[in-house]
């Protein structure tokens, strides 16, 4: 599902964020990306949905070579990838349901099928009863669940999250990770960059550790530290 081949990413200005990274993530896997601040986690995540392109090497996602992808193909790649961030990225002037439906509307889908898909995914994240609320009326955890609902409404092949619980307390964080685990059980490949040590330790998934832009550890059923 995801392959990185000898990937190096140097930002303009000479900052080397990733250096000769090789990685294979198979369909249906659940993967934690850990590492100290500045290790290159966010950079790696950005390569996966083609927010950034590598300076060297190749990135394959869902069978596509992202390094050779044309600009106008990018939207179609992103429709197969759900992305979740620490800051939720919700639209404050739209309701919960409208925020989720937004992902469908701006990609050309509306009508009754869209409404049904929204209702379905909202009940999956447990927010059906808040469908008419605005993000400002929700707790941080609830807002992140809306963001997850939006990222899942198209049934993506991959769910990517960059510190999804950075703004949440431990209990709420656990709920969010349980939700992602649930999506993973339905077949979605999940890649999460996180600092949430206790959750990584308790969930026992594959852990990839980055240090100064290189992979220093890659273990199944791993922990936050080795």
């Amino acid at each position: 599902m995801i392959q990185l081949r000898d990937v190096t990413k140097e930002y303009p200005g000479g900052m080397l964020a990733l250096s000769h990274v090789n990685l294979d993530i198979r369909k249906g896997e659940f993967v934690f990306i850990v590492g100290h601040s500045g290790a290159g986690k966010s950079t790696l995540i950005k390569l996966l949905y083609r927010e950034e392109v590598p300076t060297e090497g190749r990135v394959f996602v869902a069978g596509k070579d992202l390094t050779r992808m044309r600009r106008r193909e990018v939207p179609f790649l992103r429709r197969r990838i759900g992305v979740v961030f620490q800051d939720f990225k919700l639209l404050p002037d739209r309701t919960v349901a409208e925020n989720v439906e937004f992902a469908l509307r701006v990609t050309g889908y509306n009508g009754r099928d869209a409404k049904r898909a929204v209702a379905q995914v909202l009940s999956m994240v447990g927010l059906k009863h808040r469908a008419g609320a605005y993000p400002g009326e929700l707790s941080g955890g609830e807002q992140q669940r809306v963001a997850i609902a939006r990222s899942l409404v198209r049934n993506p092949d991959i769910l990517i999250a960059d510190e999804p619980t950075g703004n949440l307390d431990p209990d709420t964080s656990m709920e969010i990770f349980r939700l992602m685990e649930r999506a993973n059980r339905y077949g979605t490949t999940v890649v999460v960059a996180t600092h949430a040590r206790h959750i990584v330790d308790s969930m026992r998934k594959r852990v990839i550790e980055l240090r100064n832009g290189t992979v220093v550890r890659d273990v199944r059923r791993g922990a936050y530290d080795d």
Partner: protein
Amino acid sequence: MRYTLVGYVFSETHKSIWRNRMSSFLSCGTTALALFLLGVAIIISLNLDYIFTDVERQLEIQAYLKMETPDEEAAALVKMCEGMDGVAGVRFVSKDEAFEELRQMFQDKAAVLEGIENPLPASIRITTLRAEDVPKVVEQVKELPWIDDVIYQEEASRNLAVLGRVTQALSLGGTVVVGLVAVTVIGNTTRMTIEARRHEIAIMKLVGATDGFVVGPFVLTGIVLGILGGLLGAGLCLGLYNYLTESLGKVLPFIPILSLSREAILNITGILVLTGVAVGTLGAALSLRRHLDV
């Protein structure tokens, strides 16, 4: 599930104009003002054309022939005049016709001319294509044989030519300046909308919206504002002109003012609306190119 770019763009445009009704109103108003000025320029130039053709018709060069000029020589002279650059029409007026003109000028008192032998020479009357051609043609006519005297309104024709050129340049320059202002204003409105929607646009791109969905509403908003501005500008300048012709016509009935035909009104409206569309599209497109990575 239906693919509905058009539906999406229209509903977003409608919402975006309403949501930003203040700046929409502003840019629509400025565009209307710009196109109003363009409309005024068009109407002025139509009127100048109308006045000039009227006056130019009176700017006839009169070349008087010597009394003894034989008829066949006169005919040859007419041919020569017809061949000159800038000449629109040549008319030969014989001695008899000149006398008839005189008789008509005296009208009911024509009796005083009875029994008088015709004192008038034959003449060649020349009209030019443009007022500024007059001096050049006069120079050539003076060189011809059998010509006794050439009469024309030198001052008037020079002034008219200059006035014509100046107004043309002014209205053209005004149109360009005013058009640029309108493009800038629409571009600015687009930029403000982009700034207000940066967050939303980022999310659109994140969830896989194509460029059409991202820029479509902006471009259509520009076009709609341009159309509204064009209609408003056309209504303003046509209404004002109509009012002026009616009130001026009563006070100063002898002033030559063109009354616009239905066709002219439709043409002016069409030109203004199309210019509005061009202005709106250009303003939106330039702004999108500068402020959005598409």
